[in-house]
C-alpha cells in the first residue's frame, strides 16, 4: 500500500512537471504567434511591375508573418498533351522558390495539381466546391467560363494587379486580352489559344482524284465553300475511297460547330445590347448542311454521341473520312496517343510526325457563302485565380491580400516565354505572346528542348519528357508556324453567363437533326421554343432573322 502511495506521488510529480512544461510551451508559442499576428507586419505589398522586386517583397512579407509554406492548388483539363496547363504553375512555383532561396527568404510554395480530360468537368467541380472552400486557387480553363465565374464573384478581378504590369500585359496579343475581359475588367491571363482547322486526308483525296493544290488559298478567299466540300465528300463516298465524307467532334465539343453560324454570316452576340443572338437563318443553314451530309451517308447519324478514343480519332487517323473538323492540338495528339491501327502489324500505335504530315492537309473552315473568306474559331484558355486564393493557408483573413498577390505573381511567372513555348510545342496550341512565338522559331532553343537539356523543375521535366520526345520536331514546329496565319481569321464564342445554356441547346437540336428526329426548320423552332420557355434565357437572347424559304444546299 505504501509502495503504491510512493509511486503515485512520484508519478504525480512527473505528470505535474509535464503539464507545467506543456502549458509553458503552449503559452510561449501563443505569445510568439500573437506577436507575429499583432505586430507591425506587412499584409500588403504595393506591386511595382518589376517581377523580381515584387516577388522578393511578397516573400519577405510572408516570412515576416511567420509563413514558411504556401500551399496552392491548380486544376485544369484537356487533351493528354496539354498538361503544361498545370505544370506551368508547378514550374512557376519552382522558379519563385529558387528566387526566394537565392535571397535567403525561408518561404516555399507547394503546388498540388489535378488534370482531367474534360475541362468542363473542372469548371463544374470548381463551382460546386467554391462555397465549401475546396475549389483550386488557380484554374486554367476556357475563357468562356469567365463570364459566369466573374458574375458569381468566384474569380479575382486582376485589373488592379495588371495596372502595375502593363509591360507584361502588352506581351499578349490584344485580341486575347479582350477575350479575358468581363464588363471592362480583366479576369484572366491568356494561357493558350488555338485554331480549328479542317483536316483533309491527302490519301483519300488522291484516291478520289481530288486536287488539293491551292485549296487553302481558295478557302481563304471564299472560292471553295461548304457546297464544294459536300461535292468532294460525295465523290469520295461514291468512289469507295472512304466510308465517310466528314467527321466532327461530339456533343460536348460544340464550339467547333459554332463556326457554321459565322460561316453563314450569322452572329452570336450583340455588342450594343450586350445580349446573345440567336440567328435563325444562319442556324437553319448550319443544320441543313449537316443534315444533307448525314442523309447521304457522309456523316454518321449518331455523330454527336461518338466515342473520342474508340470512334472519332481512329476513324480520322485510319483514313476512313475525307474531312475532319478538328483543332491544331489534334496534330500533336495523334502523335502521342495510339489511335492508329498499323496496317502491317494490326496493332494500335500513335502516328509519327512524318505520317501526320503525309496524311493530313489543313486549311481554314470554309465559308458557306461564295466570296466570303474562310474562318476559324479560338477558345483561348485562361489562368483564373480563385477570389479566395490561399484560403487553405494560415492566417488567411489577415494575409488574404498577400496570398492573392502571390497567386497573381505565380501566374505571371507561368507566362514566361519558355513555359508558353513548351506548351505550344508539345500540345499544338498557339503561343499567346509574341516573345514565345519568337522562341519557337529559335532552332537552338528547340534543339535544347528536344534533347531535354532545358532547365526545368525535375518533376515537370519528368512528366512531360515522353511528350517532348514524341512531339518536338521540325515538322511540328513548321506546322505551328503554318497555322498561325489562321488567327487573322479567327472568331470567338460570346462571353455571357447564359451562353453555355444556349450552346447546349444547339448541340441538343443538332443531335435531333442528325438522327432524323427533326427537320432543320423544326430544330430552329425547337430552340426558339426552348429559349422562350426559360425566362432567364428569354431575357438574355435576341432572336433575329427568319428561316429562309428559298435557300437550298448544296
Amino acid at each position, binding site marked *: 500500500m505504501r509502495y503504491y502511495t510512493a509511486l503515485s506521488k512520484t508519478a504525480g510529480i512527473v505528470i505535474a512537471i509535464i503539464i507545467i512544461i506543456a502549458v509553458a510551451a503552449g503559452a510561449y508559442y501563443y505569445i510568439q504567434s500573437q506577436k507575429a499576428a499583432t505586430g507591425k507586419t506587412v499584409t500588403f505589398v504595393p506591386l511595382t511591375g518589376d517581377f523580381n522586386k515584387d516577388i522578393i517583397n511578397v516573400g519577405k512579407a510572408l516570412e515576416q508573418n511567420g509563413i514558411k509554406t504556401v500551399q496552392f492548388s491548380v486544376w485544369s483539363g484537356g487533351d493528354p498533351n496539354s498538361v503544361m496547363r498545370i505544370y506551368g504553375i508547378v514550374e512557376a512555383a519552382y522558379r519563385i522558390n529558387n528566387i526566394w532561396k537565392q535571397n535567403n527568404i525561408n518561404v516555399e510554395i507547394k503546388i498540388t495539381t489535378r488534370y482531367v480530360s474534360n475541362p468542363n468537368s473542372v469548371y463544374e467541380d470548381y*463551382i460546386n466546391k467554391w*462555397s465549401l472552400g475546396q475549389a483550386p486557387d488557380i484554374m486554367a480553363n476556357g475563357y468562356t467560363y469567365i463570364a459566369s465565374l466573374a458574375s*458569381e464573384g468566384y474569380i479575382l478581378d486582376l485589373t488592379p494587379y495588371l495596372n502595375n504590369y502593363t509591360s507584361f500585359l502588352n506581351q499578349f496579343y490584344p485580341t486575347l486580352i479582350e477575350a479575358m475581359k468581363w464588363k471592362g475588367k480583366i479576369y484572366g491571363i491568356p494561357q493558350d489559344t488555338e485554331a480549328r482547322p479542317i483536316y483533309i486526308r491527302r490519301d483519300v483525296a488522291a484516291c478520289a482524284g481530288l486536287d488539293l493544290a491551292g485549296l487553302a488559298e481558295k478557302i481563304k478567299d471564299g472560292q471553295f465553300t461548304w457546297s464544294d466540300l459536300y461535292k468532294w465528300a460525295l465523290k469520295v463516298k461514291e468512289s469507295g475511297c472512304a466510308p465517310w465524307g466528314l467527321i466532327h467532334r461530339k456533343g460536348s465539343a460544340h464550339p467547333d460547330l459554332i463556326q457554321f453560324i459565322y460561316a453563314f454570316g450569322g452572329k452570336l452576340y450583340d455588342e450594343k445590347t450586350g445580349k446573345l443572338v440567336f440567328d435563325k437563318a444562319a442556324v437553319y443553314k448550319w443544320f441543313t448542311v449537316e443534315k444533307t451530309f448525314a442523309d447521304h451517308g457522309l456523316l454518321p447519324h449518331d455523330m454527336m454521341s461518338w466515342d473520342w478514343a474508340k470512334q472519332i480519332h481512329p476513324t480520322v487517323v485510319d483514313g476512313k473520312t475525307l474531312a475532319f473538323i478538328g483543332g491544331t492540338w489534334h496534330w500533336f495528339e495523334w502523335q502521342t496517343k495510339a489511335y492508329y491501327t498499323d496496317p502491317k502489324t494490326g496493332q494500335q500505335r500513335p502516328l509519327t510526325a512524318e505520317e501526320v504530315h503525309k496524311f493530313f492537309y489543313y486549311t481554314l473552315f470554309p465559308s458557306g457563302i461564295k466570296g466570303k473568306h474562310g474562318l476559324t474559331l479560338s477558345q483561348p484558355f485562361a489562368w483564373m485565380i480563385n477570389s479566395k486564393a490561399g484560403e487553405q493557408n494560415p492566417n488567411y483573413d489577415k494575409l488574404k491580400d498577400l496570398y492573392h498577390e502571390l497567386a497573381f505573381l505565380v501566374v505571371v511567372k507561368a507566362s514566361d516565354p519558355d513555359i508558353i513555348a513548351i506548351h505550344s510545342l508539345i500540345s499544338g496550341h498557339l503561343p499567346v505572346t509574341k516573345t514565345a512565338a519568337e522562341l519557337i522559331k529559335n532552332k537552338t532553343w528547340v534543339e535544347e528542348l528536344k534533347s531535354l537539356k532545358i532547365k526545368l523543375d525535375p518533376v515537370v521535366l519528368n512528366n512531360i519528357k515522353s511528350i517532348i520526345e514524341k512531339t518536338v520536331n521540325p515538322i511540328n514546329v513548321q506546322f505551328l508556324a503554318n497555322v498561325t496565319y489562321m488567327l487573322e481569321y479567327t472568331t470567338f464564342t460570346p462571353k455571357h453567363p447564359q451562353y453555355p445554356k444556349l450552346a447546349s441547346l444547339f448541340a441538343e437540336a443538332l443531335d435531333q437533326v442528325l438522327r432524323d428526329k427533326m427537320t432543320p426548320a423544326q430544330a430552329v423552332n425547337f430552340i426558339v*421554343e426552348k429559349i422562350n*420557355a*426559360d*425566362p432567364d434565357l428569354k431575357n438574355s437572347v435576341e432572336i433575329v432573322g427568319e428561316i429562309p424559304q428559298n435557300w437550298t444546299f448544296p
Partner: protein
Amino acid sequence: MAKSNLFSKIKGFIHSDAFIFLLPAIILIVVFYLIPIAVSVYMSFTPLRNWNIQRYIHEFVGFENYWRFFYMVTHDPTVQPIFITTVVFIVITLMVNVLGGLGLAIATFFMGEREASGTQLLWLLPRMTPIAVYSMIWYYFFHGSAIGTLNSILMALGIIHQPIDWGQSIIPWGPWMIIIFVNGLVGVSYGMIVFTSAISNIPKELVIAARVDGASNWNITKNILIPLLKWHIVYVTTWQMLSLLTTYDHIFLLVEWGLVNRYWGTTWALYIYNMAFTAAEKDLGLAAATGVILVIVGAVLGLLALKIMGFDKMVKEPRGDI
C-alpha cells in the same frame, strides 16, 4: 382547449416509454428527412444558382421559382414529354414490380426449397449488382448498333436486317420499354422478398387443410395467399410507387450514355437532378422548387394509394366482440 389538449398529448408522449423507444428513429427522421425537406423548401424561395450559397442564401424571391416552373411546364416543348414519361414509367413499372414480385413469391412457394432458393437468388442479382455495372449490361444489350446483343440476336435469326436504335428511334415506346425493363427487374426482387417473407408466416395448416380438401394451386393462391397478403400488397405498392417517383440513378446513366432519348427517357426526378447538377447553369432554386412540388405530389399519391387500398380499415383497432 383543443390546443392545450394537443400540447398535453405531446407532453405525455415525450414522457412515455414509447418516446424513448422511438427516439433513435425520430432523430434519424429529423436529421435525414425533415431538415433536408426544410432546407429544400427554403432554397426554393431563393435565387440560389451555381452553388453560390454565400451570395444567394439570404436573398428571397418569393414564389418566383414556382412561377418559373409552371412557366416551363406550359411553354417548354421538352418538359411535357418528361411528365408523360414519368406517369407511364411509374404506372407500368409499378405493375411489373408488384405483380412480378407477387408472382415470383407465389411461384417459389409452390417449388421445392432448393429450386425456390435458386430462383430467388437469380432475381436478386439485379439488386446486388452495382448500378453502373447493371446499367452497362443493359446498355450493351439494347445498344442501337450491330454491337447491341438484342440487335445481333435478331439479325442472326433473320428477324431484322438492320440494327434498330431501340432507345432513340422508336419514340416514345423504345425508351419507355428500356427504362421500364431495367428498373422493373431491380424492383421485382424487393416485392419478392417482402411477399416471400409474408407467405412464410402464413400458418401451414391453412394450406395443408386446403390441399386435403382438394384445392389446386390456383385456389390456394386466390383464396388463401392473396387475401392474407393484402397488407403487404398495400405496403409494397405504396413504397414502390414512391420509390419510382424519386428514382433516377439507372435512368441517368442510360440517358447520359445516349442509349435512350433524352426527353422520352427522362423522369421528373432525373429532370430535377439535371437542373441542379448537370445543366450549364446550376439552377438550384428552381430545382428545389421542382423538388418540393415532387415531394407534395409524392405525399398526395402516397395518401391516395393508402386510401384506395383501404389502409384505414386494416389498421382499425379490433372491435373486441370477437
